[in-house]
């Protein structure tokens, strides 16, 4: 099957193509330089970009499903009947798996990273990914509150830690290492929490130690992605200091291909003030740091004003939110490994704090000069559902649009946020970087054909019916919400904003080679943990091949 995408205005930042009128050729599932007898897609005057890459969205697994179960009232929003090709859809902030696949595809996205899987529940995440159509995907495994991790951090046995990380990633078919409130969930096992320099109860290590050691293990294994961290102290006034301290833990490290730390949903970590009363934006400080340092990249975690469902592996945080709102709350501690919580949340334009949170996400994207360092996310569904991306983009591209919103929100935004003073408007190249090229590079997926349109890349392409000169926010939004075409693996999956094909997604997983004595010793320790403390047997723990019907294995060597 051949396609010729003719005369599009192409933005392909990884290949330094910035709004050039040109043709893109597709043969089977790859981008090629020439085609013989292709089906021609007329993209004259339309935007052509690589398929979108979401670096961080809670789309599958125990937490999102607990969110769906918790919120039938959300499920009832956005229901769509079964179509000829499509399954029935439900949900807004907690969409069912089918809605997730279709809606991302309609927005021109073709890859999503599920960023927080408790290893013990990984089978569940993979089961949902099987039922998530179209999207290529991968999962990050939570490895920071694990007893094995903390014990090796404490003993300083980094090689054994690396062996453990390698074994776990392979066992649960994950792509990389996720850190969420390091040490916090272990403390939450006793109803407590920790900050970066506190000692984790009973384990005698600090979050700082955990971050440093996991980064070292991650680099030792040469994983495609760096550690991916949700810092301690999320959501609290004054937490920007913790955030900067967390960034600083590994400031001396580097990697020639990428960052050595990706900090996620930094909007939730850029807060000043000492209480909710004097809560303010500290994006200036965060941006100052990120602008001059090379080792860290971030994503936004943009908040949009409205109702959503918050869910994270940060157990104590969700309990804290529940005590603020009094709304329903689900918690799920996972033995020896991690935790998790879910609670609905309304970000209200009438509430000073929520309004400032909304501003902070945008400030991050606008004050960080290099778009390669900041990825567009809403930490779906924590800041807002992913379906709001087109609105986020229009806000970043239009100062006028921002001013319209700011005129109708809590006035605290004028004093305690920076946004009103920012004039910068992003252009399509910035957007293409923040939604495609940068996330692919940060994940290390650019080397495996994602995030660009060079010859040999995966034929994942989005074509939007909007002129690059378009300034009107509404037009930008509707074009981005319903792509003219989305091509996934060389197949047209969306045409005129409608699903026209539903191929199954593929799951990327990393198989880190790491053998020898540390692995042997580690396996001895691990066997002990299963014999004594886990509630399942070791033999039943690894995710079987049956759960990855379309695997893409990436082998790494030390």
């Amino acid at each position: 099957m051949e396609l010729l995408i003719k005369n599009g205005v192409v933005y392909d930042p990884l290949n330094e193509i910035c709004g050039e009128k040109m043709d893109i050729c597709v043969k089977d599932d790859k981008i090629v330089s020439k085609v013989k007898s292709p089906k021609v897609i007329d993209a004259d005057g339309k935007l052509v970009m690589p398929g979108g890459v979401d670096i961080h969205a809670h789309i599958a697994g125990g937490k999102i499903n607990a969110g769906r179960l918790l919120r039938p009232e959300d499920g009832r929003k956005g229901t769509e009947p079964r179509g000829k090709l499509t399954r029935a859809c439900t949900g807004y902030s907690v969409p069912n798996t089918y809605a997730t696949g279709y809606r991302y595809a309609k927005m021109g996205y073709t890859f999503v990273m599920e960023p927080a899987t408790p290893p013990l529940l990984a089978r569940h995440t993979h089961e949902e990914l099987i039922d998530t159509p179209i999207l290529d995907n991968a999962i990050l495994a939570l490895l920071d509150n694990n007893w094995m991790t903390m014990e090796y951090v404490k003993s300083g046995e980094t090689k054994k830690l690396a062996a453990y990380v390698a074994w776990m990633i392979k066992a649960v078919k994950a792509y990389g290492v996720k850190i969420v409130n390091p040490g916090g969930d272990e403390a939450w096992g006793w109803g407590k929490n920790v900050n970066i320099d506190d000692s984790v109860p009973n384990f005698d290590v600090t979050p700082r130690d955990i971050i440093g050691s996991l980064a070292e293990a991650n680099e030792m294994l040469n994983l495609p992605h760096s550690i991916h961290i949700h810092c301690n102290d999320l959501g609290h006034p004054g937490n920007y200091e913790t955030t900067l301290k967390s960034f600083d833990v590994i400031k001396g490290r580097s990697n020639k291909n990428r960052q050595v730390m990706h900090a996620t949903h930094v909007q939730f970590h850029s807060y000043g003030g000492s209480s909710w009363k004097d809560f303010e934006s500290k994006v200036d400080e965060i941006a100052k740091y990120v602008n001059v340092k090379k080792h860290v990249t971030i994503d936004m975690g943009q908040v949009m004003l409205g109702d959503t469902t918050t869910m994270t592996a940060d157990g104590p945080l969700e309990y804290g939110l529940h005590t603020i709102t009094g709304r329903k709350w689900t918690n799920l501690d996972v033995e020896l490994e991690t935790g998790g919580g879910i609670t609905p949340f309304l970000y209200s334009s009438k509430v000073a704090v929520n309004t400032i949170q909304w501003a902070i996400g945008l400030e991050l994207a606008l004050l960080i000069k290099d778009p390669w360092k900041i990825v567009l996310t809403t930490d779906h569904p924590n800041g807002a559902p992913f379906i709001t991306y087109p609105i986020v983009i229009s806000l970043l591209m239009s100062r006028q649009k921002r001013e319209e919103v700011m005129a109708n929100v809590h006035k605290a935004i004028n004093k305690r946020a920076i946004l009103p003073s920012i004039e910068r408007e992003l252009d399509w190249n910035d957007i293409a970087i923040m939604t495609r090229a940068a996330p692919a590079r940060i994940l290390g997926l650019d080397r495996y054909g994602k995030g660009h349109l060079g010859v040999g890349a995966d034929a994942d392409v989005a074509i939007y019916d909007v002129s690059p000169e378009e300034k009107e926010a509404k037009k930008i939004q509707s074009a981005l919400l319903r792509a003219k075409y989305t091509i996934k693996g060389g197949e047209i999956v969306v045409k005129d904003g409608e699903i026209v094909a539903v191929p199954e997604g593929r799951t990327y997983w990393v198989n880190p080679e790491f053998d020898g004595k540390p692995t042997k010793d580690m396996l001895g320790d691990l066997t002990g943990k299963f014999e004594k403390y886990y509630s399942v047997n070791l033999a039943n723990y690894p995710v079987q091949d049956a759960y990855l019907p379309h695997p893409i294995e990436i082998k790494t060597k030390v």
Partner: protein
Amino acid sequence: MTITDVLCPFCGALCDDVVVEVENNKIVEVKEACEMGVSKMMGHERITTPMIRESGELKETTYEDAVDKTAEILVNSIRPLIYGWSSTTCEAHKKGIELAEEMGAVIDNTASVCHGPSILAIQNVGLPSCTLGQIKNRADLIIYWGSNQAEAHPRHMSRYTSFPRGFFSEEGRKGKKVVVVDVRKTTTVEVADEFIQVAPGEDYPVLSALRAILAGEEDIVPSCVGGVSKERLIELVEKMKDARFGVIFFGLGLTHTRGRHNNVVNAISLVRELNAHTKFVIMPMRGHYNVTGFNQVCTWETGFPFAVDFSRGQPWYNPGETSAVDILNRKECDSALIVASDPAAHFPRKSVEHLAKIPLIQIDPYPNPTMELADVVIPSAIAGVEVEGTAYRMDKVPIRLRKVIEPNHLSDEEILGRILDKVRERRGE
């Protein structure tokens, strides 16, 4: 041949340490499992061949004809009900949901007559919970409320709660307090430290009294609530607050007595409030080994956990309206497909009467009362013994069921897949 690490496909405890001896494709011995588990895995009377009822009698037939007859019934009905699911794999659940969607049917599962009220309660207030290993390693106060798990989940206590030694509970049973709250002295009481007897139907006020005491409002609590003295209640609250890690497991004694889901809301609210003082969690004692799995799959595929009506095209969830018993009682459905469950034995009489009247298809490994009413009977292989696949333990931990012997029958998933194909064929798709 010895096969280790086998899962027991019987109750929600989903033990995964069973050892099975197989000779000539026959299980000759089952070790580690409890009696119920052993009996399930050793096997008992099976339905041998597909059957179709003709002039009142079930006559043997082929899979092909049974599947075709099923498709015919489904295609000719306006409001089919598809029900069951708690003793089969998630892979079968997926096929069932797809079939329901295709047919515009109502799909429901046994949770609807079991922990349905718990799910409604969770949708009201949430569920502060954890995996069972967390309890094994940490809990020092274990409360079983309205749940006689010594009989329903015999190994629950030895594997996950009262008895095992955990990382922070090295002393095992000695370091843990076990309290039973129930209307009668169940067998669980024999291995507990304390028994609090509640008058039948009085769980709600007892829970309210505990919440009031916890909130420092003990003045408003009368001297005796639901048959329990105020002193006992105050003592229990103190115990809860003093625990390092406490847990309430609740069963049908809470969900199926006066107050139903409100009882569970009250219990969950109590646990929520206890978290201001110490670590506390709560967990429903789910019965069948994969009832949790159906709720999981149905939730991610349709957005809702059970009682999903596809007659509008998109899923509509309104338990009480769209649950199996209600649809049957209103005599609404004009055919029913039952998979891996036995509603004739468990539903109210009125519902069973309607089931008897409509075309009824039964897919199950075993003969049971529902089969007596069925017009088409399709035998299936036993999931977890003859078929592998996914199951979710009561704490939502997914584990893969093992296949230990070769089946002589098709799996539920295969049968449903064939029905789906036939339905599509008949509808000319």
